[in-house]
């Protein structure tokens, strides 16, 4: 157990909780946006759906399968995105990227990320960063380029 205790940094309590009990993973009825993304190298798959009301995310669904990091990150994304505008969501993507690059974030930026801060430990495991980012990159693609993203989904 000694060797594995170092893993606590990677698998923070909150990460494992989201992995075991993913939030908002029920499919939406008529989403406004939808994207699927995968990392075939490690077998992570994710599907994000968004429904807007008054320019804010009223419904968010994130479902997939994969490792603890990719799936908990996706679940945290769903939780965090509730009620947010496109701009606010894109801002979070930037923050998550910056955190993964090892940049120091300000207190207010950390506030904005909320529980996501728990993903900080991934930085020490560079090959796992792409697991953590999978859903965020997909979210960004979806927000940036809705029609293309939509098409990519239907092409599969």
């Amino acid at each position, binding site marked *: *157990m000694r*060797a*594995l205790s*170092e*893993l*606590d940094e*990677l*698998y*923070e*309590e*909150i*990460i*494992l*909780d989201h992995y*075991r009990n993913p939030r908002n993973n029920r499919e939406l009825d008529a989403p406004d946006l939808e994207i699927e993304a*995968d990392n*075939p*190298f*490690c*077998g*992570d*798959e994710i599907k994000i759906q968004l429904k807007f009301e008054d320019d804010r995310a009223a419904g968010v669904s994130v479902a997939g*399968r*994969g*490792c*603890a*990091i990719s799936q908990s990150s996706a679940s945290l994304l769903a939780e965090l995105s509730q009620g947010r505008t496109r701009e606010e969501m894109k801002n979070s993507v930037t923050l998550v990227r910056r955190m993964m690059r090892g940049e120091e974030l300000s207190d207010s930026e950390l506030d904005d990320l909320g529980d996501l801060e728990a993903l900080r430990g991934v930085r020490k*495991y560079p090959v*796992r960063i792409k*697991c953590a980012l999978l859903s965020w990159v997909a979210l960004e693609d979806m927000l940036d380029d809705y029609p293309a993203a939509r098409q990519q989904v239907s092409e599969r």
Partner: protein
Amino acid sequence: MLDVQSIRQDFPILARKVNGNPLVYLDNAATTQKPRQVIRTLVDFYQQHNANVHRGVHTLSIESTDLYEEARAKVQRFINAPVPESVIWTRNTSESINLVAYTWARANLQAGDNVVTTAMEHHSNIVPWQQLTRQACAELRYIPVDDDGLLQMDAAANLIDERTRLVAATHVSNVLGSITPIHHLTRLAHSAGAVIMVDAAQSVPHMPVDVQAIDCDFLAFSAHKMLGPTGIGVLYARPELLDAMPPFMYGGDMIIEVTYEDARWNDLPYKFEAGTPNIADAIATGAAVDYLSNLGMENVQEHERQITEYALRRIREVEAVTVFGPHDASLKGGVVSFVHGNIHPHDLGTALDRMGIAIRTGHHCAMPLVRSYGVVAAARASFYIYNTKEEVDLLVDGILEVERYFAHAGAK
């Protein structure tokens, strides 16, 4: 039998610690470690003989050429090829297969023909044939795999028909470990008038392979999976086929005469070796072949069989684990792929790495096969001459420890 403890002394990397623990290297199907004899050969070449080959009258060039051709002859004897010029140096198994696809197959495949491969191939023995058959309006057929991870040979007999020009099959699966009935496939191919290409990436390093006994037309493998350096592989081909094939890459060394208008091809094997070859790594491959020959390939195979048998037994003690492929070690090479019911392979791999245990996780370059088991990723432990039963114990104990970790962590 192998004297594993003295073998281990030959592998400097095995003295390394990973995350504070002794390295337990169980990723041999991806690439093997290198003994000091192979490393020493590289150093000696660069310190004593290095020069370009084939065209030089000076001593270094003559020595380099001799060493380079001596290495080819060693490989020839190792796989019992009829003549040295039936051994072509390539970069790796993938290039060997592409060479056949670009030359023999493009020249011989017509619309309506088919290529037959198996459902347990590595991407390198799938994608070239997908592209080729698509271009040629030909069909690509897959021999299915049964529940035990073995080829369905009755299906094979039906799939291989009079329009089959090529059968491309692995000798040993890098995921399931299954040894395919390659003699049987060869007979089926030949009686249909087809040629057969054997992906021997996982067989030549691990068991005696005799290309004349198999009676195959093409056979491919990589040095880096058999104690040799990266960047060098082999295509064996029947010389009559090589003679009739157009060249693959064009340039220096593969020609005998060039005018501004035209070129004449060089003799075999040089016709297929354009440009300065990977001289040093070819020579070091000769040293790898020497090392394995000294051990005896029967002994290598028997050692792996024992380790694999032990691993299959022990790992199934972990209840949540499902093992893919044959459960009988005598039907397979030293590869054990598995999934754990509660832990994703990626998390398992990261956790085992904390303990110094290196396994491979993911699709193992055989996505269609892995997905056919209903998963997108698997964990794989693969063995070689320096692995011990104690290392299998460390793996299984490690898995159990990871289980406990994930059961308790986060619940603190």
